[in-house]
């Protein structure tokens, strides 16, 4: 039986169905083109704060979005290859990320209160509920 949420994060804008999964929390922004190996789903940009981390099936928290129109096709591509994350939770995002996520049917949100840094760690189990504009931390991960 699932316990009730330990903490809620309110988000400002959101798209997609409800999903649950393991959180990956980044201190650095993200682009699926600049940072991600699109054949393995591992962040490979040298020096990225999550270098070596897989985002496959994860719920990814990124403070910002980086550049890149090419990212618009990339989400659909990685979803097709079954290496997509379950959701993107952005502090600040840009239209490309939203256009790409909507096209691929991947939940995406923007804006957060409180800041995830204060309430969620990589490895925690979270639920994203776009219709209610809510991210719930359901269970603490082992790494805490």
């Amino acid at each position: 039986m699932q316990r009730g949420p330990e903490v809620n994060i309110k988000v400002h804008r959101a798209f997609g169905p409800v999903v649950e999964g393991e959180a990956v929390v980044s201190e650095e922004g993200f682009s699926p083109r600049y940072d991600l190996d699109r054949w393995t789903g591992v962040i490979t940009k040298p020096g990225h704060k999550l270098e070596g981390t897989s985002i496959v099936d994860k719920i990814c928290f990124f403070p910002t979005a980086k550049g890149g129109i090419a990212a618009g096709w990339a989400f659909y591509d990685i979803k097709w290859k079954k290496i997509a994350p379950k959701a993107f939770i952005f502090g600040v995002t840009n239209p490309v990320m939203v256009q790409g996520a909507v096209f691929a049917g991947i939940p995406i949100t923007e804006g957060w209160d409180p800041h995830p840094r204060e309430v969620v760690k990589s490895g925690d189990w979270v639920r994203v509920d776009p219709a209610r504009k809510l991210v719930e931390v359901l269970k603490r991960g082992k790494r805490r």
Partner: protein
Amino acid sequence: MELTPEEQSILGGGRGEAARRALQYQIEVGRFWGAKRFVPVTNVHMMGDIEVMGDAGLEFLKSELKQSARCIVPTTTNARCMDFAHCERMGQDAGEAVKEKEIIATLRRMDVVTTDTCINYQTVYQPHLGEHVAWGDTGTVIYANSVFGARSNFEAGPAALAAALTGRTPEYGFHLDEHRKGTFAVQLKARLDDLADWGAVGKLVGESHQNYYAVPVFHGYRRAPAADELKHLGAALASYGSMGMFHFVGVTPEAPSTLPNEKMVVSDADLELVYRNYKLGDGDARLVVFSGPQQSLFEMKNLSSLFQNREIKNGTTCIVTTNSAILQQSRDLGYAKILEDAGVTILEGVCFYILQNLSPMRVANRWTNMVSNSAKIVNIIGAHRFNTILRRTADCVEIACSGVLK
């Protein structure tokens, strides 16, 4: 969102299944951003090639064509991932080349004009003040908004294609006056004699203000900047800062007469620090790239004068990318011959950044570093595990010819 009778008819299937799906998708995107309505667009520029789309994107495109997808506004394509004349020698996959040709053929049947250029604003179409367009490649968008005073958001491939099919885009972001105002001021005290310097300004300003809605206002520069300088500035701002617009007092049409309160300064010392901070890794100097964005005619002219009577160092690869129109003129004017005589590889209709098979190409050539005068490409190629180094144009040429990285 409020829909006009025409939009309701599209949504009801009045213009076919492809247009209906496109509008439905645009409504979802518009809802996310709180768009109240659609705005008609006059021109679309889209990214679509096998490297960015993958098999999934190709299948989607083919299904669109089956649903009789047709562009209803003039639509052009961005740089792609293969120059077929060079792909075998570059070590690109023959199978992917077949798919790339399939994408091009499919797009043409949908009435897309396959220009294969990321400098459409220099060579294909220059929108006027206030004109709404739907462009992709962030460098094209920031140039359209800033220099022309046209109005576009970043439109990724699927979003641009949807706009081409419906003739409209959701009204949010840079289509609205409220997002086009300057948010911070940047005084340019630096000399900025080289295109790489302009990109470095974009890096400094973009990295410190990563936000789509941050709009820098440049001022205090000693002379009027040239189009290629604004091109490198904009491309770098969009890349490092995810920005879609800037103002330049005395230069761009919507620049404000009073400066925002937040202020920063860029000096020569700041730029020197940017160059000094690139790590040289193992000193590998065997890959020098002039790309991202494609070279303009004047950039080709300048490169040809720098490479005149020079030769690329044995074992070094130097790549220049441009579009078919500029390449043809460069051939007519003799610039291309000078570059090729020096050993430069000129690729047509592509960008180095999205070359198909780039990671395996890096491994096969044992490249560790990539040197370029483009701050944008230096920023965006990291996922392919290149260590990247920004250098001024003449320094890049010297590195390519001497094999010595400093």
